[in-house]
């Protein structure tokens, strides 16, 4: 027997499921810990997409429970439109089955690989079938089935199915059990936190064993579902063109006008002429060579950029700010939504935000949050075009220190929305380097960098002034007291130093021996008509002068005095109390006043 015959015996087709079994890493199932995150990510993506299509505010419940030594049960439940019983086995039990793959619009999931990959992963590690419960509306009863995948054929295998009593009116619940660990808990919560930032209209409830977390919504506006558009002549490949041509009964010029966006009669005729084809020929009968010529002509001709407004769904500057504000306490947040743009015929849009200060860690690199179509990218930060764009911006020119990434209490968010997000691999962890996208990211970041610089320089200026006020009003008097004691001379008066350095209205508050004193010294050249608001637990009934107004809330007293303080004079009030609380001065410009608490 010849060798070729020998080999032929071993040659056979490989099912997608079999291929996946051997290449788990391609889909993000390379380790048990990562498996949990990928599964939840896929299920949540589907739930959010479904809710968006059904125009309901997503309410998503996630639970992870250890049920035996290594086996974890993962449940994701949504209030989406549900899936009709006939489709359930295919959605969960067949790889590469989906509704969004053939549509040109922004959506989270795309290829229909994700959730069925999780079903397969469960089957491979625990052998337990996946349970799906779904209900499409109040009139329908819920449907429950147990599903596996036939690995050799990539067809669903329904283990059992029956109607089910479910208290939800509509929605889907999927329960998957597989081998895993909870070592990725931190990453998982991070994923949900980030997802909640870019989906401010969604609410997530999470149960991790015995712990419960809630990521609440900040917006009650249902986001408009992006509308699918037709392919753009510049963004199509040969295979797709061939499929479209075979399915069409139209004449060439009509086919071009009807099946592609931004192609009018004139452009259609131009394409026909460039391809050397008559406009009336039936597209169905075109040969491969003719189609190739047609494709070449389509790419060569000038066509306006595809419409972007309906097919993309940016989060918006306001909602990004609110979403970030909710999860991170920062001193400064700014966001930018760039105008939409196009790469190789695919519309895209870049959004970015910068947060600074507050509770962000002061040391180390900036925190980078990467998103594609409202989905957080959790892995391969180093391989992502977003990261390299951030590193390529010269942050030093915005007074931010930088070692590749900017350093310090900084958070950077970048969201790329597109009908076709170019990922570096199928696990969808990193965005590929596309010059058009990179340019938009850099422009957005530079714009935000300028805002941040302005904020930081203003804050620093205030800081220097406050620092000086503290030195002059609080510490120098203490030096005076100690030094006078050492040299055994009368206490030296430091108010001339104060007046000379500050040239402002200085309000001081201090507590000595159970007595609180507030003193206002007017070192400006103008007479001040001032209101003094003192909020603390002291009721100040024995205050002298008496407060003009006192109110109480939750045991805290707000005392208000009104005073006219001529330049170069001082006003004082004291009362019995413990001090602390807040002191505010109104009736004078912010840059003409300074409040110093001497007890701090």
């Amino acid at each position, binding site marked *: 027997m010849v060798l070729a015959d020998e080999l032929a015996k071993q040659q056979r087709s490989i099912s997608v499921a079999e291929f996946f079994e051997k290449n788990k890493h391609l889909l993000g199932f390379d380790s048990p810990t990562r498996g949990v995150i990928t599964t939840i990510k896929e299920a949540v993506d589907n739930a959010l997409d479904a809710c968006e299509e059904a125009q309901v505010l997503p309410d998503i419940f996630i639970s992870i429970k250890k049920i035996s030594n290594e086996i974890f049960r993962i449940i994701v439940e949504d209030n989406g439109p549900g899936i009709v019983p006939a489709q359930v086995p295919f959605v969960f039990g067949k790889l590469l089955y989906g509704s969004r793959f053939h549509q040109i619009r922004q959506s989270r999931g795309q290829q229909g690989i994700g959730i069925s990959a999780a079903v397969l992963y469960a089957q491979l590690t625990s052998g337990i079938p996946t349970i799906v419960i779904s209900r499409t509306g109040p009139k329908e009863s819920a449907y429950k089935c147990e599903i596996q995948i036939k690995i050799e054929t990539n067809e669903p295998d329904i283990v059992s199915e029956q109607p089910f009593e479910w208290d939800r009116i509509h929605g889907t619940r999927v329960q998957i059990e597989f081998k895993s660990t909870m070592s990725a808990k931190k990453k998982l919560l991070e994923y949900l936190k980030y997802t909640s930032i870019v989906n401010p209209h969604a609410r997530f409830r999470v149960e991790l064993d015995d712990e419960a977390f809630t990521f609440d919504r900040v917006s009650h506006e249902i986001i408009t579902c992006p509308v699918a558009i037709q392919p753009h002549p510049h963004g199509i490949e040969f295979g797709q063109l061939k499929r479209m041509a075979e399915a069409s009964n139209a004449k060439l010029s009509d086919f071009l006008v009807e099946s592609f966006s931004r192609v009018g009669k004139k452009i259609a005729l131009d394409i026909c002429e460039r391809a050397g084809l008559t406009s009336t020929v039936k597209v169905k009968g075109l040969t491969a060579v003719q189609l190739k010529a047609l494709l070449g002509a389509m790419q060569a001709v000038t066509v306006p950029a595809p419409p972007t407004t309906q097919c993309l769904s940016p989060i918006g500057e306001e909602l990004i700010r609110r979403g970030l504000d909710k999860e991170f306490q920062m001193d400064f947040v700014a966001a930018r939504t760039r105008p939409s743009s196009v790469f190789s015929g695919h519309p895209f849009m870049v959004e970015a935000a910068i947060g600074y200060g507050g509770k962000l860690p002061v040391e180390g690199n900036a925190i980078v949050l990467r998103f594609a179509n409202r989905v957080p990218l959790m892995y391969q930060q180093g391989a992502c075009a977003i990261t390299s764009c951030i590193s390529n911006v010269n942050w030093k020119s915005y007074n931010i220190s930088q070692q590749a990434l900017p350093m310090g209490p900084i958070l950077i968010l970048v969201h790329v929305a597109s009908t076709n997000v170019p990922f570096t691999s199928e696990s969808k962890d990193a965005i590929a380097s596309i010059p058009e996208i990179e340019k938009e990211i850099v422009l957005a970041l530079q714009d935000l960098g300028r805002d941040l610089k302005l904020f930081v320089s203003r804050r620093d200026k205030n800081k220097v002034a406050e620092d000086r006020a503290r*030195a002059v009003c609080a510490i*120098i008097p203490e030096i005076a007291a100690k*030094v006078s004691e*050492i*040299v055994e001379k009368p206490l030296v008066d430091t108010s001339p*130093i104060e007046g000379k350095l500050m040239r402002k209205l200085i309000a001081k508050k201090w507590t000595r021996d159970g007595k609180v004193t507030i003193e206002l010294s007017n070192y400006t050249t103008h007479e001040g008509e001032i209101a003094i608001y003192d909020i603390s637990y002291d009721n100040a009934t024995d205050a002298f002068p008496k407060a003009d107004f006192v109110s109480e809330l939750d045991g805290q007293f707000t005392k208000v005095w009104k005073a006219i303080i001529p330049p170069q004079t001082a006003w004082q009030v004291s009362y019995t109390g413990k001090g602390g609380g807040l002191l505010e001065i109104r009736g004078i410009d912010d840059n003409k006043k300074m409040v110093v608490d001497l007890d701090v």
Partner: protein
Amino acid sequence: MSKEELEKKSMASLIRIATSWYDQMKAGEVPSISLPTRTKYNIEFDDTSEVWKYGDRESMRTAASAKSATHLLKMAYVIGFVKQQLLENRSSTLREMYYISEEWKRAKFGAQEESNFLIEDLEIISEVPREGFHLHPEENGASIYGPMKIREETRRGMRAIHCQDDVGQAGYTIPNNVENIEFVDHDAKFVIALETGGMYDRLIENGFDEEYNAILVHLKGQPARSTRRMLNKISSTWNLPVLVFTDGDPWSYRIFASVAYGAIKSAHMSEMLATPKAQFLGLQPSDIRDYNLPSDKLTEKDVEALNAELTDPRFSTEYWKKQINLQIELGLKSEQQAFAARGLDFVTKKYLPARLTDMGVI
């Protein structure tokens, strides 16, 4: 200077600092103080005393920011504390003062180092060593072993001690205040100051001190002030050569530098603390090569330190440039105890006699 004179000078200069601040504030000015810059870029070689001292660069501290004002406030509290101590004739350790500062509220020290640094500042401004403030370090001094006789004024009376015959195996412990020691007599030819306790013990066990009439001093790493004062006094009183034997790495060369030229941190006290006649015995980078000693690779930090030494004025001699460049080239460092690889007697029978002959000491 007698004890009473020192106290008088100390009190006068502290009151002078406080008075200048008092006068500044009385005139409506922000109190300030100027200090020499305490970095390696501001030390100069003083030809007459042959030690390194601070140069002319000064930095001004003005109480116009919270940080500087707090620094001045702390200084005022320390001055007040020292004044009280001098009046009551009491003394305390630096560590005790650090704990006492707990009561000083805003003027309290954040860390012991901060109070040490501040005391050094006061020494510089007042030109009085800390003994004059009745403050002493709490670290116990290192040990000394060899043919010498001293008298120490202890709290229990005067004691005469021979540093070979009257002490245990570990030697005589150098007290905090070397000023209380009277140097009576000796039978030594030279002094070897050793970085590690292991080498100190090795030389005693091998009887090196008796065979060569050597005084052995254990430096205990970076030597304490009292250890450096002791070496300074032995060298100036008896005019004996002082040789420093450390590990062969950049950090150990700094030990030698602080013995011979004074430390950057205490350049204001160099005349009392440095021993300008001290010579570097080893371990030299060329020894690593010539004796093929067991060695470790230089780390990035080591190389950085060596390069820093090339710009340190205290190391700007032909000898050091050659040795440091050689070490960078070799990329190696060795510990002094690496000689044990050649047998326990090698260092006392071969290396030291050869090296000391080379240096013209024996």
